[in-house]
């Protein structure tokens, strides 16, 4: 057989039917659901008198609107103060009950952000197709699963047919060669990639991340990278299977049983691109060139490194891009040539499906330990990605480090990543955020988001402005080499 990329293999393994018009029916193994993009899909099913095709493929949890304050959370759904949020979470609960779909409910210890929960449970496995009504479903590609976000009509389509109508994407390889420097994390890698190829650079492609720097990164770091593939325009991000993948999955609740384990692992070992597989596009970055990244604008591609300055639109030749910069600077309240380290912060948010896993919290805690959040900050918060991450962090005493430093320690959920709940920025406030989108208004009306790694966010919280975490504290190499 001709050489194949990982994406080609996953596609072939799920191809139900190729149609003459170029579309194909693709079988879906795992469908994750949350409260925001599912109610209209369930309603559609009900109106058409249809049933879910295969119940055990589905797993639901509320995440986007759940409150993260302990007090509001304690009373469960009934305790959600915002009425529309409460109705939405209640609707998910009702739909899961009436259609018999497995749900980790609001105060279940396993509840959390869908993209943290799936992998953590082993509900995301290599060789699966994984979909969810959320664009950051690309996260699951870190496991060599073909995973992408879908809209609500497609949520309904998957529920009803266990399939999606797709067109095959093109293959792109982003290779990061060499070794990352100390204090440079997966988040910096993916921001640097987006800075290089742009927010539309991956449109129409499935991006596979490879090279020695990616092989060195832990599963959690790989999830951070695949998570933001969509910010480079690609619906799919992928990393091939290796020992790190397999070791991560062992003993997870939804992983294969002992009886099936060896056969599954043998199958998973095939899930890498063949050595001579052809990619439609290849982008190469040198790990040594990547420094801690900070976004200055309102698009993730508007990024530079910590020692950089805000760009001058007058120096940009592309007219549309230059106008975009002018608008971004106005919105962000920044001026050309301003140093990144001079940007003062009002709030710091550590959380989201990009960076709310245990290694992220450890990294941030390492920087925060024994230090204090700057008095000039209005708020610094840490929101673990799931109940299990929270419990693990507490078992390690990380919450005490955060609380002692002046951070708030919250209940799991999406929180200030998109500010659908009470956690949000005020107009004009600058926030160092470990989330994935710095769009206008994303974290609150008029709010100004700067995307950074957890270590950089913690350092910024202590300093009150951006600082190079490498000068700031002697921290060991983060999220690399951990199995």
């Amino acid at each position: 057989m001709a050489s194949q990329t990982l994406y080609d293999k996953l596609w072939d393994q799920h191809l139900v039917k190729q149609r003459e018009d170029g579309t194909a029916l693709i079988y879906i193994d795992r469908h994750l659901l949350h409260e925001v993009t599912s109610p209209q899909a369930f309603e559609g099913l009900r109106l058409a008198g249809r049933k879910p095709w295969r119940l055990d493929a589905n797993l639901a949890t509320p995440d986007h609107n759940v409150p993260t304050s302990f007090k509001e959370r304690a009373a469960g759904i009934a305790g959600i103060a915002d009425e529309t949020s409460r109705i939405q979470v209640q609707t998910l609960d009702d739909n899961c009950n009436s259609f018999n779909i497995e749900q980790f409910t609001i105060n279940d210890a396993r509840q959390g952000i869908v993209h943290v929960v799936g992998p953590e449970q082993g509900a995301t496995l290599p060789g699966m197709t994984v979909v969810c009504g959320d664009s950051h479903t690309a996260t699951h590609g870190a496991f060599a699963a073909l995973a992408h976000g879908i809209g609500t009509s497609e949520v309904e389509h998957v529920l009803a047919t266990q399939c999606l109508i797709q067109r095959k994407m093109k293959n792109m390889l982003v290779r990061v060669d060499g070794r990352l420097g100390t204090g440079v994390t997966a988040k910096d890698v993916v921001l640097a990639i987006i800075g290089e190829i742009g927010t539309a650079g991956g449109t129409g492609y499935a991006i596979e991340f490879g090279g020695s720097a990616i092989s060195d990164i832990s599963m959690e770091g790989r999830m951070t990278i695949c998570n933001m593939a969509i910010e480079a325009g690609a619906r799919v991000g992928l990393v091939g299977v290796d020992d790190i993948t397999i070791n991560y999955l062992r003993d997870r609740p939804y992983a294969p049983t002992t009886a099936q384990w060896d056969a599954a692992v043998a199958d998973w070992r095939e899930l890498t691109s063949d050595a001579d597989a052809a990619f439609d596009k290849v982008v190469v970055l040198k790990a040594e060139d990547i420094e801690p990244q900070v976004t200055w604008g309102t698009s993730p591609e508007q990024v530079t490194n910590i020692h950089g300055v805000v760009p001058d639109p007058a120096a940009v030749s592309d007219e549309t891009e230059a106008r975009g910069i002018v608008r971004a600077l106005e919105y962000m309240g920044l001026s050309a040539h301003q140093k990144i380290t001079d940007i003062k912060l009002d709030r710091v948010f550590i959380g989201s499906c990009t960076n709310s896993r245990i290694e992220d919290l450890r990294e941030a805690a390492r920087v925060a330990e024994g230090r204090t959040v700057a008095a000039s900050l209005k708020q610094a918060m840490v929101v673990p990605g799931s109940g299990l991450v929270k419990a693990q962090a507490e078992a390690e005493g990380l919450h005490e480090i955060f609380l002692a430093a002046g951070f708030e320690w919250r209940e799991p959920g999406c929180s200030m990543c998109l500010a659908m709940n009470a956690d949000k920025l005020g107009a004009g406030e600058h926030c160092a955020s470990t989330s994935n989108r710095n769009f206008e208004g994303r974290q609150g009306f008029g709010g100004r988001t700067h995307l950074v790694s957890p270590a950089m966010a913690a350092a910024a919280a202590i300093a009150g402005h951006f600082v190079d975490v490498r000068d700031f504290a002697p921290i060991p190499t983060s999220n690399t080499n951990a199995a």
Partner: protein
Amino acid sequence: MEKFIRQQGLVAPLDRANVDTDLIIPKQFLKSIKRTGFGPNLFDELRYLDEGYIGQDVSKRPLNTEFVLNQPRYAGASVLLARRNFGCGSSREHAPWALTDFGFRVVIAPSFADIFYNNSFKNGLLLITLDEDTVERLFNEAQGVEGYRLDVDLAVQTVNTPSGEAIAFEVDSFRKHCLMEGLDDIGLTLKDQDAIDSFEARHRTERPWLFRDGQPV
């Protein structure tokens, strides 16, 4: 889904690249559990000067009179002219729901984000990709001539300008067919129920660990 065959409509030019779905419909409106009613909050942060919330009476809100959709000359527009990478960001289908609820049937841009592209066609919203130069020219014409209208004919795949020029566009035949017939994808897919059943049976034999039936989930 509403059929799309031909649309002759007023053109509103939105001169801005990378319009993301948060901008098209901000998150506070995603709390609705319905598919309709998003039109008044389309481009909420650009259209109004204050912060919007769900269930609000928009008629009392201060308008940003500079925003294109607030200019009287574009009232009733059904064709949106946009810049590159339109619809980037989240997978929220609320974005096409808001555009169609407002009255748009067509968006023309040099490029679209993938998920938004898929979502739009499932809601009777036709997205037309034209090269940057052509889009630039349409921007000049739409901004220059009051009451500028385009005639979009899906059957023959052309955008017809007032000067009589017919600009051809590409659209995949499956999407075109569904739009023109107003077809529900699910019904179509279920015609292949046998193929799905046999695929599933084989998949289950080859990779049983992907199935958990019988086990408590």
